[in-house]
């Protein structure tokens, strides 16, 4: 297996775990006492993942907020600036294909892996069309312990933690469908046809940034 593929697999595992870890709510269950957190809907995973993998889209969404919310404007300005100053759109970008309902990538393998090592559990229901619906993910105590103890010693992974916190801060309260709706407002995203990679929108971001802050990125 090539290094690139290996790296992709590793990165996917980490990102998906961190999404489940950071964006989940407290949970207690007598049936599964080891489950401590719950995360609902795969769509939400996908949408958050999209924002992590595409810093230009994140910047765009943040600028949308800045345009409407003067309180957050200066803070967002600094965030967007630092995203571009550190060349994140080029450095951190992991292209994602568009699927039926927007950005989507098969994460079943990742979920399977996380489950096999006892990090998560999950449940789902099948509807009358035999479609899997109402996916629920649970983070185990084992995972929480491991994350809390290990991650602070791994500096290369810190960016992910900061990014999750940032997204959580601005978009954590949105459901998958809500996230999807806002992402759909972006022309490039909307116009990307099925199974094609969603393109960069840095030019749009730079223009928007200039029109809001009268400053070049």
């Amino acid at each position, binding site marked *: 297996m090539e290094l690139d593929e290996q790296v992709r697999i590793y990165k996917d595992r980490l990102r998906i775990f961190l999404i489940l870890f950071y964006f989940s709510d407290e949970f207690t269950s007598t049936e599964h006492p080891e489950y401590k957190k719950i995360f609902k809907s795969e769509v939400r995973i996908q949408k958050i993942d999209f924002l992590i993998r595409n810093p230009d889209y994140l910047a765009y969404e943040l600028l949308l907020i800045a345009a409407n919310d003067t309180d957050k404007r200066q803070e967002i300005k600094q965030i967007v600036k630092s995203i571009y100053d550190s060349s994140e759109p080029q450095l951190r970008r992991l292209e994602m294909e568009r699927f039926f309902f927007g950005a989507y990538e098969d994460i079943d393998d990742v979920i399977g892996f996380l489950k096999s*090592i006892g990090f998560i559990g999950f449940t789902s229901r099948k509807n009358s069309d035999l479609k899997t619906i109402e996916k629920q993910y649970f983070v185990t105590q084992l995972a929480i312990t491991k994350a809390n103890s290990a991650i602070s010693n791994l500096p290369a992974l810190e960016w992910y933690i900061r990014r999750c916190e940032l997204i959580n801060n601005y978009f954590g309260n949105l459901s998958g469908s809500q996230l999807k709706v806002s992402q759909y407002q972006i022309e490039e995203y909307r116009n990307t046809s099925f199974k094609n990679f969603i393109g960069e929108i840095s030019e749009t971001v730079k223009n928007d940034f200039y029109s809001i802050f009268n400053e070049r990125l």
Partner: protein
Amino acid sequence: MKFDYNSFISELQKEFDGTFSESEIKDLLNLEEEIIKDTPLSTGKRLVVNYVSFTGKKSTEDAQDFKDEIIDYRQEIYSGVNIWVADNLKGKSSIFKVIKFALTGDNSLKPNISKWIDHILVVFSINDKKYTAYINNSKRQINAALYNKEIKSYPVEGEYSEEQLFFSTSKDDFQSKLKEFFFHQFDYYSLRWTQKSPIKDSDDLLEAGASWLTYFKSIFLESKDTAELMYGGQGTKVFQMLLGLYLTSPINKLTIEKDKMMHLKGKQQSFDSREVLENEEKKVQLQKRLDELTEKLSKLMQAERQSVDIISMVKEYDQLLAAMEVENAKSFKLNNDIQKNRKQKTETYERKQFVEEELNKLKKEFIKAEKQQTDIKEYLEIGIFFSNLDLKACPSCSHPVTSEKKQRAVTAHTCALCSDDVSEDISDVNTDSLSAKSDELTKLQEGLKISIEALKSELDEITKNAKELSKVKIQLEQQQSSIKDTGALNTRLFELQRAISEERKKVRPLDSEKNDIIEKKAVLNYRIKQLNELPQRTGDQKIEQKIQLLAKAIDKLNKIRFADGQSILKKLSDLMTDEVKALGLRITEITINDRFDIKYKQDGDYLSFSEIAEGEQLRAKLAFYLSLIQLDIEHNYGRHTRFLIIDSPGKEEGDKNYLDSLTRLIKELETRFGDDLQILIGTAERSLENAVTHQNIFPENVYVF
């Protein structure tokens, strides 16, 4: 022809009563013999070439494929149209030139080809009588003979001597004897003309006459002569001879006589008494004119002294010029600087673009390296994060993976989850090598960083330079506007120039006029002196009157000839009109005047032969000769030999229409006049193949001999 010579004389005498008596006029004209010499009636004779043969060897110094080939050409030729079809430069013209050589004694073969040919035999007939011309060309001087029988084998010395009409050992002799022979046969005589001696400074008038060779031009129509209807200045002589109109010879004789007399008159320094008187009058006039000029000259000399002072103007002009030079130099330098600035700016801009591109490239590379670094670091740390984690459960069935299961899997080298054999799995990813790679990338990035910094500082430098250059540009432009308006200077300069030149003109014409007057005075003085030193009267005192008499006689005879020949000329011009139309020319009418000039009416204009479009001249020429022959055949007038050689009639006018009509014409000639005339045609036009019975077709690239 009703022409009474005696009444012609007495009529002339009446006009010159008191100057010449009838007997004086008779002596002067002396036309008794010439009066009966011409008749337009055909001799009924025709020339037919029956056979041509020649032998030799193609000796050449070049290595040609035909080198040293033996030539043995024999060709029967028939009445009617005979065609040689062969590519150009394959010897058609040479055949015709051989025939011409044998019939006229004039060798116009190319020297190298003439060298090849040793013996020539041409059998021809005049009506039913056969003759053979033989030339031995193997030596420097030719030996040639004419026999009055048909001979088809080259005669050896002394052979057929009884049938020999003459024998020549030189070309000139052969030519003159042939001329005699053919002139006699066809009732030709030598129409004459005068020409100035070709010897420089000689004012002798030479008399020349048409030879057989001259008339042969009406037989052999060479492609090179297409642009002229009749050959050279003697063309009308040939035409007149072929027509044989009454009084042609007397007119010719008197014209020569008149030319000679006029020449003599010019040479004579003879004056009669009236002229002396005139001279006295002339002298008085000349003196008067001389006095006038002397007076004018002295006036001019006075005027010259009062010439306008133009020195100040010249001075101002020079100063202005200097000022302009200074401004021009400034402007030149400035323009140079601007040019230089522009060039530098362009260079700077180009360099800037290059550096920017380079910088972008390096930045991209740096980020790529950075991304690889990040990937490696993440990979290693994620590896650590997920390490020491045992399989806990099957994600599919949620059954726990027990330590026994795991142990079994390790021993069996299988996967604890899917039980696949993993013994052959080799992890490509070696953490040591990854660290090494990371170090490499760090080094690469450092290098890139240095390059990027260097480029960045260069870019800064360039930007600074560009700003500086822009500043210089603005300065230069400001300077440019400060340069004096040379336009105004120029205008003033021009004004001055004009004023000066006008002033000078006022002076200069005085100079030239002065010179002119002095010159005229000298001429006048000379003429007066000449008049004073008049020679004594010499020579023929009546020469002027004689010339007038001759001119009158010629004029009268011309009118009589033209009136008498009218019906013949009409017949000829009608024939020509039909012929040119048949050949596809847009000529509606043809006229012939008393000087034998032929005019072609085309689109309402009367054109001379040379004015007809080049592409139509050959057809007009063909029409001319065919008509002359037809005039003989159909109307029994004229004395063309009814024999034509047409070399390359399709060369210049190769359009399809022309060739079609030519083919048609040739066919028609064959059917209508096949028994009455003979035409030899040489052509490279394959479309003329199979137009007539007697044809000699040579395939492509094949030599005729």
